[in-house]
């Protein structure tokens, strides 16, 4: 989908970890692509290219395109928006929000979970699901190896973290896309975990809250990754039929196949301030239409103005705002304690199927057609 992101804006924490790792082990050879998860994060070539190019959009937000290397390592870093030097510890204490201009740095997945939920309420689910290189994708490093390295580096098995917890006492299902795992890209496991989160929300009758930061579909899984857009929407459709309630918070950056599927069709679409949100990446658009992009193009404020999102919520206010929204979203739930009509219909259908299969009539039509075609 749209891998054209601005990684320098997005993944500040990654830099930090890399620096730390290097400091600890100076002998370690710098793995060339380990820190360049495709499709979103790009190598130096692209950065060089970018340096030559004038910023695509003017004004204040164009300064978001500062290079990572402009920031001194160690204890201090420079805000890509207001260029102020920030003490790293201070930034972390402020929830990765610039104390001077309130620029929202991309939050690592685990920190999102711990800062959003009530302490001690998090129960992670499906953490063991891992990606497979089913296409045996031929990149410079095999995808299987890239996955393995990313798992090792990030300490988690995939780009999506999901589970249950409480927000100001309200039980929710939470799903968080972590940009540091291959640019938060959606492959089979991410799509499956979003779908499973929908299932949990439906069966346990809990609101679903999703945080996204993603470059889109994961190219290395080819059409299997494109199909996750459909899969996640299928799960959401069933959640909707059961009267579920879903909120998606788009954070910097959310583009491509993630924006063009589950993230855009939750009941409410929120965004963090100045988050880059779009279908195609800004550089793809600029190179297609060969003209300068308007100031602030594809930022949350721009989308709000164009009527594309429900509201922008500052990181500090997320817990309170979402708690209130959940109260509205679930206010009528008590009136419908039982499963809805569609649920009952499905259960009956299931029973009929099980019976049919028991009687030996369970051959699946699609399977039969597939066999014919593959021959």
């Amino acid at each position, binding site marked *: 989908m749209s891998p054209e992101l601005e990684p320098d804006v997005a993944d500040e924490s990654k830099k930090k970890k890399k620096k730390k790792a290097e400091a600890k082990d100076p002998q370690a050879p710098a793995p060339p692509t380990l820190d360049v998860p495709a499709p979103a994060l790009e190598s130096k070539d692209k950065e060089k290219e970018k340096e030559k190019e004038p910023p695509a959009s003017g004004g204040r937000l164009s300064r978001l395109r500062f290079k990572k290397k402009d920031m001194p390592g160690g204890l201090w870093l420079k805000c890509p928006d207001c260029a102020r030097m920030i003490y790293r510890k201070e930034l972390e204490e402020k929830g990765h929000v610039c104390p001077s201009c309130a620029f929202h740095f991309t939050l690592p997945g685990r920190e999102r979970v711990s800062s959003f939920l009530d302490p001690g309420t998090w129960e992670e689910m499906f953490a063991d699901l891992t990606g*497979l290189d089913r296409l045996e994708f031929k990149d410079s490093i095999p995808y299987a190896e890239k996955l393995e390295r990313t798992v090792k580096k990030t300490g988690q098995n995939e780009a999506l973290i999901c589970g249950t917890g409480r927000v100001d006492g309200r039980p929710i299902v939470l799903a968080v896309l972590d940009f540091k795992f291959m640019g938060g890209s959606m492959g089979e496991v991410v799509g499956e975990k979003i779908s499973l989160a929908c299932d949990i929300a439906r069966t346990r009758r809990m609101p679903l809250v999703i945080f996204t930061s993603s470059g889109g579909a994961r*190219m290395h899984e080819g059409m*299997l990754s494109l199909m996750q857009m459909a899969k996640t929407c299928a799960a959401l459709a069933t959640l909707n039929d059961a009267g579920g309630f879903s909120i998606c918070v788009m954070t910097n950056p959310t583009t491509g196949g993630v924006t063009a*599927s589950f993230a855009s069709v939750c009941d409410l679409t929120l965004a963090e301030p100045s988050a880059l949100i779009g279908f195609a990446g800004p550089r793809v658009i600029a190179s*297609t239409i060969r003209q300068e992009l308007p100031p602030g193009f594809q930022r949350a404020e721009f989308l709000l103005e164009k009527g594309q999102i429900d509201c922008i919520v500052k990181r500090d206010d997320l817990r309170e705002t979402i708690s209130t929204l959940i109260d509205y979203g679930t206010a009528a739930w008590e009136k419908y304690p039982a499963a809805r009509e569609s649920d009952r219909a499905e259960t009956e259908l299931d029973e009929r199927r099980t019976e049919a299969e028991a009687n030996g009539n369970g051959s699946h039509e699609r399977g039969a057609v597939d066999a014919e075609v593959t021959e």
Partner: protein
Amino acid sequence: MVGMADETRKPDGGPGMAFEREIHDLEDQLRELEDLSKRTQLDISSEIDSLKAKLADKLQATYDDLSAWEQVNVARHSERPVTGDYIANVFDDFIELHGDKAFGDDPAIVTGFATLAGRRLMLVGHRKGRTTKDRLQCNFGCAHPEGYRKAMRKMRLAEKLGIPILTLINTPGAYPGIGAEERGQAAAIAENILGMFHLRTPIVVVVIGEGGSGGALGIGVGDRVLMMQYAYYSVISPEGCAAILWKDGERTPDAAEALRLTAPDLSGLGLIDDVITEPLGGAHRDPEIAYANFRETIARHFDELSAVPIDELVRDRRAKFREVASIEGRFPVIA
């Protein structure tokens, strides 16, 4: 969307069709011989026959051993039948219905009532155009949000009327532009994907040429997903993939190979349900055969679907995409 299709394709099929040069030479020779025979009344039928046999052999050999990238170029061939050709040659009639009744009428997606061998349908298809003027006018098949919203509007009408839906996919991708983003390109596609899972009427999807990523999937959710034999369907264009992975346009053929985007590949993965056979050398070489196969296959699938109760149909559609090509037992099941 990354890597739009080459917009400067030549009438002979474009630069990507160089692998057919020998075939073209034989075809030219055959045409000359046939002209000669007509003009001079000379009996050269044996020469003509042997040239025809040679041409058939060459075509067979070339197409038996088609690389993924060559196949992408066949799918993009400038003479390959487009939605307009199917409308004119496959259906008994067609009444176009315009507009999303909100913003505008996107020429890159055509919608309307159509009849296929006596079956009334709602037809939704990407429109690429044939002449340069047409192509420019409909953005080479790259739809805007209003196109996807028009499609959804007409599909909802079909549902209300109890008419099945047929969608024809032929796009390099959804249009990447300022207006498209302002009007919510991603949301329009997402709404369609979600909406198609709710539609209580049978849906058959056919990729007739290019299946370009989200722009294709925006009208691509159905009870049956079929592909023409030489169509391709991919998460990203081979050009875009090569640019990202290797920053090298020369490696586009490698990207095409790696992405596994051909009908046989996707069929093997279980991502598509059926392949519609094309004449040897692509649908454009003998469109009538392609149209006949198309008509017969689509009619069969609609007939099968019409026998399924609607609740079951919608449920199966969701289950089909939910389980899409996943390895059995790999993922947990939440009842």
